């Protein structure tokens, strides 16, 4: 009975994923400004979610291991970390492709890009640690300790990363803890220089032209490949008007606030892709995709944990 149920679940998963792939290409409508590349979010975002969940599960099993010293808990922690790393790589690659096509850059040191890179480094270190300790109980113990220790630094990353960049190209800022995403304030009489993503911006002037307010901002692209003066404006109603494009990129600068007498201006990045999920069809496919990728990760994790546990049983005389 259980066997048959498990088989049915697996077949359903196979069909569901095929459905997601079909829907991703042929059901989800094109989003204006993103082209066909916008479809990638149907796999990109769910894999990123699964990554975070897998790492949380791995840390929990590491704590359990330190309490129980059971090989099963260790195998589960490793399996979860491996599945997490696999999905993390997938999310990074799909994200970088999307960013190149839509934003004009593979890598932007966007807060989420930074944190996922650190996550990859942490788990690379986790596996390096495991391979350089021979004694099995010690290997398991040290790996569990490192997993927990690394987990404690994650909140700091979330806290620090938005300060690395005061803005993000990713939509849905609210999911990013501690992030303001309100752009960066520049002051002619104080901090003139700031950073949006990895672009250095320097405020040159703030001026009133008729019923528009404009700011002159010099932008220096990473590696000083390009520098340019951008002049975003906003109108009397307080809405951004002219949105000049960054040199060589496909995202734009907007002016959110400006105070001519004080000499201050607040500017931000605006990237295409915001508001993608407001389409009903896209939203439903996206939800189904989250669910399907979640179950796929669960299945992978179960297989891997079983194999790891059985292998460790052969290598040690540990009790069942």
């Amino acid at each position, binding site marked *: 009975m259980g066997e048959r149920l498990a088989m049915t679940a697996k077949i359903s998963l196979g069909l569901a994923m095929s459905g997601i792939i*079909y829907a991703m*290409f042929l059901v989800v409508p094109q989003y204006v400004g993103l082209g066909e590349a916008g479809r990638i979010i149907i796999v990109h975002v769910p894999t990123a979610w699964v990554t975070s969940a897998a790492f949380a599960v791995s840390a929990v099993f590491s704590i359990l291991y330190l309490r129980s010293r059971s090989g099963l808990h260790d195998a589960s922690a490793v399996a979860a970390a491996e599945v997490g790393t696999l999905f993390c790589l997938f999310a990074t690659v799909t994200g970088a492709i999307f960013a190149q096509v839509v934003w004009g850059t593979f890598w932007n040191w966007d807060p989420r890009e930074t944190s996922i890179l650190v996550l990859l480094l942490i788990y690379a270190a986790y596996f390096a640690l495991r391979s350089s300790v021979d004694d099995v109980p010690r290997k398991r113990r040290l790996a569990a300790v490192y997993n927990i220790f690394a987990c404690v630094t994650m909140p700091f990353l979330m806290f620090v990363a938005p300060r690395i960049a005061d803005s993000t190209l990713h939509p849905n800022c609210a999911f990013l803890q501690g992030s303001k995403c309100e752009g960066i304030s520049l002051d002619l009489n104080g901090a003139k220089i700031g950073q949006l993503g990895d672009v250095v911006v320097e405020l040159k002037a703030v001026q009133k032209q008729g019923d528009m307010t404009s700011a002159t901002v010099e932008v220096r692209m990473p590696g000083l490949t390009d520098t340019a003066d951008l002049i975003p404006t906003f109108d009397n109603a307080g809405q951004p008007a002219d949105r000049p494009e960054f040199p060589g990129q496909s995202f734009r600068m907007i002016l959110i606030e400006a105070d001519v007498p004080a000499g201050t201006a607040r500017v931000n990045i605006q990237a295409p892709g915001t508001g993608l999920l407001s389409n009903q069809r896209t939203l439903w496919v996206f939800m189904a995709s989250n669910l399907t990728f979640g179950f796929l990760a669960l299945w*992978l994790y179960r*297989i891997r944990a079983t194999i790891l*546990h059985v292998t460790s049983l052969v290598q040690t005389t540990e009790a069942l």
Partner: protein
Amino acid sequence: MQVVLDAGVAIYIAMSVALVVWLGVFVYLLRIDAEAKELKRLVLAARLQSPTLSSEVQVEYRTPSAN
């Protein structure tokens, strides 16, 4: 070649490629899953068959007070 790169056709081709890749991965996973189950069954059976090691330790109490 022109037909393949045509916008209307390309998306069907991309979808087919993705589907084929997924089906390949899926079949592979099904096989690995079955093999892992079988492996686990074999290992557990082997463990149950081989009795736990008999103690090869001899303990000798020499003075009465020691026991």
